[in-house]
């Protein structure tokens, strides 16, 4: 049998790679095992159609932690983030709303819709920024166990209490409202322009199986302001070369730090003896020994797929079972012979260099959700669209373009189940809806790739197609993610750790779970 590693990381998604890089940096002998032929998990770039590079699943780099970029020196490994410059929302009546990177331009545009909203927008932004800053330390901390009387937990809880107490009554109340309200209600307190509310609310529903009128959707609005703290509208952008380039740069850093990475090496089982992990068994039958194992897979896959239920306490198994992980989104990638021509803002222009949001009204989004609630994909879905080739010409042949369309809602549990016919019907619904805004789109399509939640599960190992490894609802966050008492990246098995988006602080290409898990692991395992 081969050598024994200090650590095996299961899954070469971005969090697994971040984790491996940090472990290797601390001197551990690390092996990353990835099932697919390509690294990155849901953060991959693939040339599905010759000459056109698709960021197949994850399509924007939202909150990649700046400390990770710095500490792993990702820039020297080829990471270059190109800014998203705007959010353009075309309307069926031919009008539009664009929010630009430039503050004054946005203000002028908002003023056109509503002077009141233009005024409120700045005040809203200030409040959100303050709240984002208040919440930020939480994202960078290992969740304490509120039931624990251990000094470390108590200190952390006291510190949290003090931190939030210092916010003062007004901001604390605003924060509580943000955490509990629906994005529609929360925005109603501030704005009157329907398209503005809808486009902002849309960012609150991405990846959730909730509508904008559902309480619990408001707090995701904060995410949009998180990035900006770190110097940067720039924090929202594309990676040059597609999202896969992010994974590639982390992998390159990990390799340089001494980690070994194997692709096409799917893990079939995590091996354990007497409650302690000993290594993994690959699908090929090969067994690899390790002192510790870290799983970057989602909790359902890790605990119910790779382990024997009998090896874990029944309470824990129960908690993993009830951890909600319903997929709600699909993805359509297009190779285009020409740019889309939007009726609302014809021709080429800077509005095509940012996000394009199909979210004309809150009711539109809510109705899209209504379809999904009862097991159908949205007939007229919400779409978040980007044209990476507008920013990074290397993504498509000269004069041609790639378009990435994030689509919501597409329930994993489709009535009658997903099949080829239903997948294409879903793709048609997307194109039909889009052509209402950009009539030339249908003729511009050279190739179309449609991913349903079932495809995401099949291809990327995302259980039920959930892009966040578990819904980001209030009762699945912080010390409850993924299960009470096990939010500290540890598991009921000794030397088995978790580092995926199913752990705090959750999904998005941010890398924080991978980094925090590494910190916890290194407390117990120095090289």
């Amino acid at each position: 049998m081969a050598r024994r590693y200090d650590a095996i990381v299961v899954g070469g998604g971005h969090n697994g790679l971040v984790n491996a890089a940090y472990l290797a940096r601390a001197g551990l002998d690390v092996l990353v095992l990835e099932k697919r032929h390509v690294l990155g998990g849901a953060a991959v770039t693939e040339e599905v159609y010759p000459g056109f590079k698709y960021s197949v699943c994850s399509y924007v780099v939202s909150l990649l932690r700046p400390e990770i970029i710095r500490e792993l020196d990702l820039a020297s490994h080829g990471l270059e983030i190109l800014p998203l410059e705007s959010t353009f929302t075309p309307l069926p009546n031919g009008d539009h709303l664009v929010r630009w990177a430039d503050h004054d331009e946005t203000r002028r545009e908002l003023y056109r819709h509503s002077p009141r909203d233009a005024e409120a927008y700045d005040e809203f932004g200030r409040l959100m920024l303050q709240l984002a800053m208040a919440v930020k330390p939480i994202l960078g901390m290992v969740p304490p166990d509120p039931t624990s009387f251990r000094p470390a937990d108590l200190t952390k809880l006291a510190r949290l209490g003090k931190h939030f107490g210092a916010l003062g009554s007004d901001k604390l109340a605003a924060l509580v409202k943000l955490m509990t309200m629906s994005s529609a209600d929360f925005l109603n307190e501030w704005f009157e322009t329907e398209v503005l509310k809808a486009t902002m609310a849309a960012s609150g529903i991405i990846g959730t199986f909730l509508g904008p009128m559902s309480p619990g959707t408001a707090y995701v609005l904060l995410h949009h302001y998180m990035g900006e703290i770190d110097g940067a509208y720039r924090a929202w952008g594309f990676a040059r070369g597609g999202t896969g380039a992010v994974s590639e740069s982390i992998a390159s850093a990990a390799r340089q730090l001494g980690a070994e990475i194997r692709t096409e090496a799917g893990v079939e089982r995590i091996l354990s003896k007497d409650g302690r992990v000993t290594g993994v068994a690959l699908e090929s039958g090969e067994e690899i020994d390790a002192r510790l194992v870290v799983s970057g897979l989602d909790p359902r896959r890790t605990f119910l797929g790779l382990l024997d239920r009998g090896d874990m306490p029944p309470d824990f198994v129960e908690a993993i079972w009830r951890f909600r992980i319903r997929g709600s989104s699909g993805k359509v990638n297009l190779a285009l012979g020409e740019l889309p021509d939007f009726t609302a803002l014809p021709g080429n222009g800077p509005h095509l260099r940012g996000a394009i949001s199909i979210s004309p009204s809150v009711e539109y989004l809510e109705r899209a959700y209504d379809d999904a609630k009862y097991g159908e994909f949205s007939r007229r879905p919400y779409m978040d669209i980007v044209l990476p080739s507008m920013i990074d010409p290397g993504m498509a042949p000269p004069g041609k373009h790639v378009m990435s369309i994030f689509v919501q809602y597409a329930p994993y549990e489709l009535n009658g189940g997903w099949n080829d016919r239903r997948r294409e019907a879903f793709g048609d619904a997307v194109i039909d809806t889009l052509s209402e805004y950009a009539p030339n789109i249908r003729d511009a399509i050279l190739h179309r790739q449609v991913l349903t939640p079932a495809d995401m599960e099949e291809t990327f190992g995302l259980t039920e197609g959930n892009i966040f490894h578990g819904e980001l609802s209030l009762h699945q966050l912080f010390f409850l993610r993924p299960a009470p008492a096990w939010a500290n990246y540890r598991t009921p098995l000794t030397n088995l750790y978790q580092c995926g988006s199913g752990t705090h602080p959750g999904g998005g290409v941010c890398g924080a779970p991978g980094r925090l898990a590494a910190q916890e692991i290194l407390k117990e395992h120095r090289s």
Partner: protein
Amino acid sequence: MTGPYDAVIVGAGHNGLVCAAYLAKAGLRVVVLERREVVGGAAVTEEFIPGFRFDSCAHLIDDMHPAVVRDLGLAGNGLEIRRPEPTVFAPLPDGGHLTVTRDPAATAAAIRRFSTADAERWSSFGTAMRPALQFLEHVRAATPPELPPARSGDFLEYMKLGLRLRLLGAREMTEVLRLLPMSAEELIDEWFESEPLRGLLAAFGVRGLFLGPRAAGTAFAMLGGLSVGSEVVRASGMIVGGIGRLTQALADTVVANGGLVRTSAEVERILTAGDRATGVVLADGEEILARRVISNADPKRTFLGLLEPTELDPEFVRQVRNVRMRGAFAKVHLALEGLPRFRGSDAETEPLQGAIRISPSLDYLERAYDDAKYGGVSRAPFLEATIPSLTDPDLAPPGQHAMSVYLQYAPHRLQDGEWDAQRKEALGDLVVETLCEYAPGLDALVHARHVTSPADLESVYGLTGGCTSHGEMALDQLFFMRPVPGWARYRTPVEGLYLCGAGTHPGGGVNGAPGHHAAREIIRDAKKNG
């Protein structure tokens, strides 16, 4: 000019009366002023149809705050509260039904017809919910401390609540914290598979809310329908003779303790001098001076209606305006010539004494909400009917019955149009037609009906937006956020002006807790200030 009183209470709803009774008992000179000719607010019984008396709005009571019944001697006041059996009778479209009684074994047996697994989990579900219910009892009993703690007392109160939570056990504690922000659907999904049971439980999660069962926070609302006892579902109470008897008994207690209750005395404005409330002026111009004013009206009526905006901080006014008071509820009262016969019901077991609820599945409720969230009336609404004349035959002529039907969702603010006579009739038709699907022939029994639309709830009963709970009981409008952050302790920015209605913690329902808590704080202040 009359007075000065120690306290004038604006509105003789049940909370105003509870508060007044406590203050009177404490020796304060109180006067309660009621706009209508009858006391009770939304807890009132009226003869809408000659010979038939109906509970106009609320028709079931929660457990009264335990201290209220004891302290105010309501039982000795001729007040009789009954816990009808069954607690809930839920007919189903296929002619079956699910009946919940106080006996968990009998309920489990009823559930077994739909799912063995569900039946087996019924009691353990009750047990699992108990820690949260126990904890919430403590929360409900407290005056909300401010957050962040402003005084040492606040800090102590949070420590106390934290400790209570922790004493439940580590596992139970995280379970309570996990439960509170969930949706009813998520919680129910973890336990039950059969639709009749899921619909029955989900109804507790949405009753009185303009939300569907998939909305976060509805699990918390659902807990309100459950019992710490073994019966799992809390047995609501009915007042023999109608709910108006309760508020009449409360009014009697006020008077017996030397207080005054005046009806047909509409308060038009709260008088202030400097930053202090000094009394009220009635619609007819009469001024009544008092050392303090206590409003049982909802926060919007109180601050936006009875005070001038200039008397308040603009930020406070903004927050009051933002209190969500979206009503989607109506009441249809039916005078029946005989007892309706529900398909599948067994006449001998008298299944109609308690609440009759139409909520056959979770999605039924969600679809009912879908219609309403875009401003329409639910095509297939959630209904909760009571036939109190079964318990007290005096409520209807011999052999006939008075049936009160609560309907949800009928939005106060319609997408198109107003609540005119035609709409009201359509609402009445909708209720009768819906009931007929479950009790064929019911329409032939209806000899008269009276519709109370969401607009009537506002205009007749003073419920802003038709919101029966004086502010939606959603997570962001509870505890230290109720009615607005910073003012959850029954006091207001106007010195000497207090709130005592359902718009304050712990909120809506006929339980008297806000009135009780407000009185507790007012008496504390009165002692401090001599």
